[in-house]
């Protein structure tokens, strides 16, 4: 079996960092088939509000209920399918379907600029600008020094009546030159600004350029003074822009020493200056509520609140941006805001905020176990007033607390509504899901089953139905009603759910039934594969001989991969059961698998038969076969398997041969050779069965080299491990 693919570095991001590099979904994740999880796993989320979900998923569910966004899970990618995913559970990034968009202003800015320069009779040598050299998402105040903003400036030159033609040209030329860089020493700066302008309008534009270049150069005090001189400018663009730039300048000045050299916010940075920044932004916003920079200014305010550590205001910012601002006023698309809220607010919060949305999301996060500041009952009770307008949400948090923190399902049930509403938004769906889980936790499997069945026709929102199918399947499994999953009128059609149950817990009669009645060719072939494989590996040779008769002499070579529990490109085909043993790679000849099984049916300790069953496993890569791995307790497929008893292990087979005094010389030598090789080359046993001590392996080696030294195997083996 191929080990799960090792994604360099990316896996760490996918698994632990969650957010920041999730634009693509090709970082490795694997599904975990359970509805009960109280700890974060970004690879496994469910469409109901639970502490086990990534906070961004819970936030999206709440926003979907408020109609602030539509939940649109991305289609499963080829990679996710190869990792074994179905619709539910899902990795957090399956809901992240708006990516950081490209910068469209770049092209439109250049076009506008070309147009304006044409009117002035100017041309430019290069379209490169200092601001455009940055990457999308890269942070620098210099980014705004680009065509778009320069075109605004030059457009104003054309529209300002008091300027002479020469002044327009020299001011435009100066602005173009400033696009080349972002830092100028004072003398260089002076040489770039037009020295010879006469009109008061032109002087105001020069003052603006001086202040702007001071700003980019990091001379914030000079910049602010310069912008302030334009506060009463009669040119409306200059007046508005200068007022906005005062706020931006103050922000840049205030945060100068806030970060260490690696870009981390210093814990002890000076927060006193942010009040003045906030005032400047508010001054702009009250003068220009729908101004040309009001969207940007609102965004800057969020940054101020973050830098100042004002989590109450920051929470209100995100709630407003996500639920009230709308496309026209929001600073960023919901995807970016959700990500930012997670990074900048939710993971840093220590208590409640005035925003019910953010507080509920955070409460669920801190219901996870092993946290130093886990939510307490007192803290939650203290939030009652905050949720006054959303009593159902508050009740749900109380129920979740009872269930996940207090481990008291009976108490959770008391706080959840008994009646199932006609429409299931995600909160109502969460209430009912938690009710079902609490019933199951209290061992009332029949009541939970009835609830899952009742909810099925009501599940209309994305992913709800798939979660219910999983819940119902697990309920049937644990209730000893596995056959109901596969009944002809079963509502459970999720392929992976059915295949896992066939692979892990189905007994022989059910597998035989599904060979004929499977809902797809894959299910039929999988049932047949599982049946034959388990009969062989559980030493049910007579049944194998019977069942293999249904297999054509040349079975289809369709690969069964994830349906057997493999990931990526690993898998097997039904041709496995027509293995003829002919290759004899190590010079030990074996008959076909059918003949091997027949020999073992006659004598379960047949030396040749045991060695050859080992050969069948070895040559077909069946060591560590996923079908033999039992899922963790509580996961889908973890109940009592339909095939009883131990699984054959190669190591055990070889040991039986080694201990068999009647075994033929070659059989015994080969068993020794193979048993020693079970530990090659790492010292780990790869053959299954109970580990043996190094001293035993040493004994085998000695025996092989002395008693069987003349055999090829005795000659060829130089080491033991």
């Amino acid at each position, binding site marked *: 079996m191929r080990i799960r693919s090792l994604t360099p570095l990316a896996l760490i991001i996918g698994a632990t*960092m969650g957010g920041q590099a999730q634009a693509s979904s090709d970082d490795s994740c694997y599904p975990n088939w359970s509805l009960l999880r109280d700890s974060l796993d970004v690879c496994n989320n469910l469409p109901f509000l639970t502490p086990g979900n990534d906070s961004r998923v819970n936030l999206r569910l709440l926003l979907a209920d408020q109609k602030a966004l539509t939940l649109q899970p991305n289609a499963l990618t080829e990679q996710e399918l190869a990792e074994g995913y179905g619709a539910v559970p899902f990795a957090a990034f399956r809901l992240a379907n708006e990516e950081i968009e490209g910068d469209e202003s770049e092209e439109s800015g250049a076009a506008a600029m070309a147009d304006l320069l044409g009117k002035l009779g100017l041309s430019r040598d290069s379209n490169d600008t200092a601001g455009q050299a940055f990457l999308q998402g890269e942070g620098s105040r210099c980014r705004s020094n680009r065509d778009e903003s320069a075109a605004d400036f030059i457009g104003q030159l054309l529209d300002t009546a008091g300027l002479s033609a020469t002044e327009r040209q020299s001011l435009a030329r100066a602005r173009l030159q400033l696009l080349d860089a972002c830092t100028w020493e004072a003398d260089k700066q002076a040489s770039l600004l037009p020295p010879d302008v006469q009109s008061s309008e032109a002087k105001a534009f020069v003052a603006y350029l001086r202040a702007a270049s001071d700003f980019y150069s990091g001379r914030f005090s000079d910049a602010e003074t310069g912008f302030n001189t334009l506060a009463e400018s009669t040119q409306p663009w200059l007046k508005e822009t200068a007022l906005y730039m005062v706020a931006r300048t103050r922000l840049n000045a205030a945060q100068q020493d806030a970060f260490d050299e690696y870009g981390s916010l210093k814990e002890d940075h000076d927060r006193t200056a942010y009040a003045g920044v906030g005032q400047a932004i508010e001054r702009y916003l009250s003068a220009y509520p729908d101004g040309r920079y009001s969207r940007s200014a609102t965004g800057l305010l969020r940054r101020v609140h973050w830098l100042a550590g004002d989590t109450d205001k920051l929470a209100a910012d995100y709630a407003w941006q996500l639920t009230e601002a709308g496309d026209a006023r929001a600073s960023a698309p919901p995807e970016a805001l959700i990500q930012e809220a997670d990074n900048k607010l939710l993971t840093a919060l220590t208590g409640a905020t005035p925003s019910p949305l953010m507080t509920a999301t955070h409460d669920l996060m801190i219901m996870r176990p092993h946290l130093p500041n886990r939510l307490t009952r007192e803290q939650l009770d203290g939030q009652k007033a905050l949720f006054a307008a959303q009593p159902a949400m508050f009740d749900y948090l109380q129920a979740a607390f009872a269930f996940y923190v207090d481990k008291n399902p009976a108490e959770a049930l008391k706080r959840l509504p008994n009646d199932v509403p006609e429409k299931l938004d995600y909160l109502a769906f969460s209430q009912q899901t938690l009710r079902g889980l609490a019933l199951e936790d209290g061992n009332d499997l029949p009541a939970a089953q009835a609830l899952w069945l009742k909810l099925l026709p009501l599940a209309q929102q994305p992913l709800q139905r798939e979660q219910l199918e999983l819940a119902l399947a697990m309920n049937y499994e644990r209730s000893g009603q596995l056959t109901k999953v596969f009944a002809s009128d079963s509502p459970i059609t999720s392929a992976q759910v059915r295949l896992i149950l066939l692979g892990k817990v189905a007994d022989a009669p059910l597998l035989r039934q599904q060979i004929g009645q499977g809902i797809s060719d894959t299910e039929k072939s999988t049932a047949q594969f599982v049946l034959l494989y388990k009969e062989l590996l559980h030493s049910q040779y007579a049944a194998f001989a019977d069942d293999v008769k249904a297999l054509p002499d040349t079975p289809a070579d369709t690969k069964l991969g994830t349906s057997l529990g493999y990931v990526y490109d690993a898998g097997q085909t039904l041709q496995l059961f027509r293995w003829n043993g002919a290759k004899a790679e190590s010079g030990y000849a074996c008959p076909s698998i059918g003949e091997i099984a027949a020999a073992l049916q006659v004598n379960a300790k047949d030396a040749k038969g045991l060695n050859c069953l080992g050969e069948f496993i070895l040559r077909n890569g069946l060591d560590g076969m996923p079908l033999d791995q039992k899922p963790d307790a509580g996961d889908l497929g973890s109940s009592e398997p339909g095939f009883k008893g131990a699984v054959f292990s190669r190591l055990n087979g070889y040991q039986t041969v080694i201990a068999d005094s009647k075994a033929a010389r070659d059989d015994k030598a080969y068993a020794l050779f193979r048993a020693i090789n079970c530990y090659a080359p790492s010292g780990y046993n790869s053959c299954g069965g109970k580990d043996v001590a190094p001293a035993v392996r040493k004994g085998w080696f000695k025996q092989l080299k002395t008693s069987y030294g003349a055999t090829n195997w005795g000659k060829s083996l130089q080491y033991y491990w």
Partner: protein
Amino acid sequence: MTTRFRWRMIAGGLIGLLMAGFSSGMTWAAVDAREHDAFWLWTGVATQPVLDQARTLYVLQGQISATRRDRQTPALIAQGMSVTRLPQREVWIVYRAHSLRWPESIYKQLLGQVQRWRDTGTAVAGVQIDFDARTLYLQEYVVFLKDLRQRLPPELKLSITGLMDWSSNADSRAIGELKGVVDEVVVQTYQGRHSIPDYAAYLPRISRLGLPFKIGLVQGGEWQAPRYLQDSPWFRGYVVFLLNQK
């Protein structure tokens, strides 16, 4: 963020202990970043005191992936810290690639950013590409890397991260072609938070690839150096992936 790291650490730690306890007589040591001087610095990882002793840093700066708007043409999205002057002797600028079909604009932006790093006075050793080159894409990757090598200023080196299963399954001819194209491969020996139990079986093959290689470890993960490692003429030391410790 901190809560996530904490949980992963607990989970990974337990698995590691179990492996150590039952699978072998080897003693596995936890990777203590203080014993190393080369680190990966990824997005969202807070500054740690060990950075003061770092001689080599691999700094994530961008991710290349397709956008929703345009599935065909990938874009370069900034990641990690701002361009600044770093004191380490050797700084590698790392880009995580989800796609190899880069438009010209990405090369221009990437090389421009690397130049901005050099302009700060940081000792930029070269560029590292972190790409999940499954065997399937290996040939395409080699072609890509040869082209990238041509585009890089000659004084800059090219490093790539490598997969363990390259050495077992990969087309050895394709790997062989990397010689003279990449200056080093940093091989990852961990999965999530713990080292891969089979690494001892893989590494001998890696050391036979004929390429200078480093071993990537994860902070707090487990690691036991195989004896032959120090004898390999191609082994160039360790790089530790830093994680938030809170």
